[in-house]
């Protein structure tokens, strides 16, 4: 099976929050969602963007964990803290550059998006990508990803439209496509 990745086409998001609801239903997610849908500027536009763990190749959360509780699965998914190891220090929540890990004070336990590992390890899309009605969240293989990248390749060698600064802090396993409308670039699907 070709390696598949989560791909976020940000501008497609309509803010329905299906991904949040679906996240709660993943086996082991314990009825709690681990992703976010954020308004870009609610006073000006209806545009929303989903934000979830981007599964860094060199994850700051795992690097800062004193208990080595955050494991990285073979498909690159950065998993929730192992329940027996997590000591509740919350270093991971402070270290994450995107503010993703959540912490349950009662259970003294960190939890985060694990790319629905029980599904994605078998090539089944994560819950969020399964339900997204607008194809904002897609589960695609490397060939499809390359095609999408080629589609948006610009003369300056950059994949994304007119973005001056790097949108991410480091290489991630989840791939993103920035909202073109906001960048003044029209994308047609």
């Amino acid at each position, binding site marked *: 099976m070709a390696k598949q990745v989560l791909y976020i086409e940000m501008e497609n998001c309509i803010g329905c929050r299906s991904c949040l609801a679906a996240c709660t239903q993943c086996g082991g997610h314990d009825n709690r969602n681990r992703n976010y849908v954020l308004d870009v500027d609610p006073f000006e536009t209806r545009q929303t963007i989903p934000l979830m763990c981007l599964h860094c190749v060199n994850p700051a959360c795992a690097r800062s964990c004193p208990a080595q509780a955050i494991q990285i699965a073979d498909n690159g998914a950065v998993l929730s803290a192992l329940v027996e190891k997590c000591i509740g220090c919350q270093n991971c929540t402070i270290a994450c550059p995107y503010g993703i890990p959540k912490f349950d004070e009662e259970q003294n336990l960190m939890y985060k998006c694990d790319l629905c590992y029980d599904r994605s390890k078998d090539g089944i899309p994560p819950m969020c990508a399964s339900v997204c009605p607008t194809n904002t969240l897609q589960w695609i293989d490397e060939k499809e990803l390359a095609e999408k990248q080629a589609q948006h390749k610009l003369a300056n060698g950059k994949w994304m439209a007119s973005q001056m600064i790097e949108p991410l802090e480091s290489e991630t396993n989840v791939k*993103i496509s920035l909202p073109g409308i906001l960048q003044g670039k029209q994308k047609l699907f």
Partner: protein
Amino acid sequence: MEHAFASKFARRAFTIVLVLFIASFLGSRFFTHIDLALYGYMVGSIVFVGGFLYRFIAWADRPPTNIILKKGLKLLFRKSTPKTSAEHLVTYRFIWNRGWYRWTQHILLGWGCILSAFVTFPLVFGWMYFTMGDNGIYTVVFMGIDLMTIRADGFLAYLFFNALNITAFMVIAGVCMALYRRMKDFQALAEQTFLYDLMPLYLLLFISITGLMLTASNIFLHGFGHPVISVVHQFSVIVTLLYLPFGKLAHIPFRPMSVFARNYREHYAEREMKKCKVCGTGFVSAEQSHDVIDVLQTNEIRFKMEEGFHLAELCLPCRRKYRIFRFTGKPTHLSPAKEANQHANG
């Protein structure tokens, strides 16, 4: 003295074995009450000390671990330590909050193992033994001191003699509950591996069953097969001891770290909170924010932004909004609008 040992590991191993030796010397009244039938366990325990130290030192050397260990030790005598320790190490309140099934399973497994260790280690090292002066009356000796006298056919004596049988039943019940959960829980099914998650359960089952077989052999079979079963049981215990520091069971000796972590968070939060560089809300102790920045720095991860702040200096909602700014170019993080509708009901 500085150069007496080749490494930190050698020094600590020597110290621990020396302490064990002196404690045995004193506890067994100058080696007059060592139970030589248990010498295999003694050798196993000493090898375990080596393995444990090896794992522990490698672990404590990691920068984030080192910080929590050092600062946690300094803060050990906080007023809240007894309460936190009781909740984290005795009653497992946080596991109760994860569900009654997991809590019951963990109480049975955890206390089954800990009580067994409280019985067996003192017996192996000669710290505890029984003598009989008058017929029918046992004297319990602990660290060379006559602790109490009990009637050999009394209730207390019954509990003492059957302690390991009782804990074996506790462990077997706990293991069965854990194995059942591992067959049914989706996340467990997805993430578990034989070596890390299942083997420790099988090892505990192996120990408990062979231990109970010794009792069964005594009670029902007039000791038939006892020598063989006792060697198998000894094998099961020693293999588990050697495995302990390198697998899932390592969380038993490492768990007190959670008390350190709680103290560390509480103490420094009382001292000074870090104010979010965007919205000004105090979200974590200044010390921890600083420590995390240091730890990331040693890992060559730098989240210093053009705006002049480090990402670990933003509260979590602002950090998410700042990311939207980086995606879109619109200064979402400066907008007063709060995140809305982020929690779905499962």
